[in-house]
């Protein structure tokens, strides 16, 4: 089933075109990896999907993006962002307790019962494989966690609003190998229930965890296919050059 469908997406920052006529679709419960050299527009694409680009002053988007067949511009933007969660490159926990960090989203969407919040926080932390490490200090500041823990906290925070899609922008680039491994495992585990789109500069990571891969270059999508095909038998020579590390 198609979750996200993009048709001829053009994105401009002022006069600068960051994405050129990008079209592809993302299937439900799959992990799609976006790869490509720095500045090719991966983050821009990701931010277009949950309309975080609305916040950028001079950003303009044309084309059609649908979520479950409905244009994302027809949806209430806050509701869209509830359905399409996002994890940023740098962990950005709020300077409040671990509990309040996770509960921020559910509270935003109207959940007040302490009991339900407790359940949601525990479930989100368990899903993010962080529960055992923090269950005894939920009241402590989230800023006291390690970088890897903070990133999993941010994942838990995104999960707590029960999104359908999870956008991850280089979620492991600030992490050590062990934390990276945990986040990768987590992403694969989560893809059972969520649709995941992940930006990564790490080819092995893309190959390890994703079902589909899209390769971008200078704002254009050069190739899109199953990860296996893109990595073992790329159709475009530029794709091949990039994944074999000959440029990028």
């Amino acid at each position, binding site marked *: 089933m198609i979750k996200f469908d993009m048709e001829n997406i053009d994105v401009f920052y002022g006069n600068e075109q960051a994405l050129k006529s990008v079209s592809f679709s993302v299937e439900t419960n799959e992990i799609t990896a976006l790869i490509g050299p720095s500045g090719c527009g991966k983050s821009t694409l990701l931010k277009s999907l949950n309309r975080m680009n609305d916040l950028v002053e001079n950003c303009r988007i044309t084309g059609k993006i649908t979520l479950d067949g409905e244009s994302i511009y027809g949806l209430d933007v*806050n509701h869209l962002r509830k359905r399409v969660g*996002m994890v940023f490159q740098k962990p950005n926990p709020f300077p409040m307790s671990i509990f309040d960090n996770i509960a*921020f*989203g559910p509270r935003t969407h109207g959940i007040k019962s302490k009991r339900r919040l407790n359940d949601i926080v525990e479930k989100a932390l368990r899903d993010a494989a962080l529960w055992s490490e923090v269950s005894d200090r939920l009241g402590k500041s989230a800023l006291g966690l390690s970088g890897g823990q903070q990133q999993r906290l941010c994942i838990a925070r995104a999960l707590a609003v029960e999104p359908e899609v999870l956008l991850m922008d280089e979620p492991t680039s600030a992490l050590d190998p062990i934390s990276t491994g945990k986040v990768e495992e987590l992403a694969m585990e989560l893809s059972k229930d969520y649709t995941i789109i992940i930006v990564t500069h790490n080819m092995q990571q893309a190959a390890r965890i994703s079902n589909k891969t899209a390769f971008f270059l200078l704002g254009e999508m050069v190739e899109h296919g199953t990860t296996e095909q893109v990595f073992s038998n790329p159709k475009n020579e530029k794709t091949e050059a990039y994944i074999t590390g000959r440029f990028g």
Partner: protein
Amino acid sequence: MLRLTLYLVIGIALFLALKHVYTYLPEAVLRKMVRIWDKIFLSLTWVFAGVTVLALGFIIFHILSNGIPHLSPRLFAVNVTLGDVSMFPAIISTVLMVIIVLAISVPLGMFTAVFLVEYMRTGSWFVTLIRSAAEILAGIPSIVYGLFGMMFFRVFLGMGFSILSGSLTMSIMMLPLIIRTTEEALKSVPDTYREGSFALGAGKLRTVFRIILPNAMPGIFAGVILAIGRVVGESAALIFTAGTILQIPSSLFDSARTLTVHMWRLSSYGQYVNETYATAVVLLLVVLSLNAVSGVIARKFTKT
């Protein structure tokens, strides 16, 4: 004029010559010179810091030594008559004045700043307009505010010499300060917090109240403390608006004399120099404790 030009030319020539010489000096000598200069500058900073501390210490010592011996019950008498020296009514008036000014200027200034920083596009003409207005307001001497308050609140709106005239005038005077410190505080909140909140589906309002303002609090608070200090220390603007009658105000329409105005009044009588110093001690204590309290609260806010 001619001589000045001559000196200048000689100076520049010397400088250039020295610079020229520098390049030919051996490495070791140069390094030593740098070290000597470092030492000289370090000692200079110590000297200047010392002068500042000494001056401050001297003022405080002067006030305390002249004032403390004259602190007498008479200065705190609750029942006062006209021309009395008791500062009790002045303390009440000062506290009242501070509370009213803050109640008006803090919400107004804070929300103006939130509007400017969080809701308006940076660099829009409207933001520039408000910001330059605030800048200009900040540079106006307080006596001008006093005259304005006198003409507008006291005479035109018919509020007379009253706490209300005084605190409205002071509120306008405090606005630029509150706006600017709040703006700075808001800008110091990292954008990643805003992104995090929006990405969870929180709206603007919730993001502002739950994420941005709590994190900007220490900075806003610093501005509020500065404002309190300026209200407590103000005299010129208040003499024209709140008046100088020594009484415990029973309504907002009563004239009131704040501590600073009271001091000015006492000292202008000529025969109350000792009482003036004693009043200054109390004023000093008020200001110092305000600083202490603000420090504690700011630290509490920053600890998360």
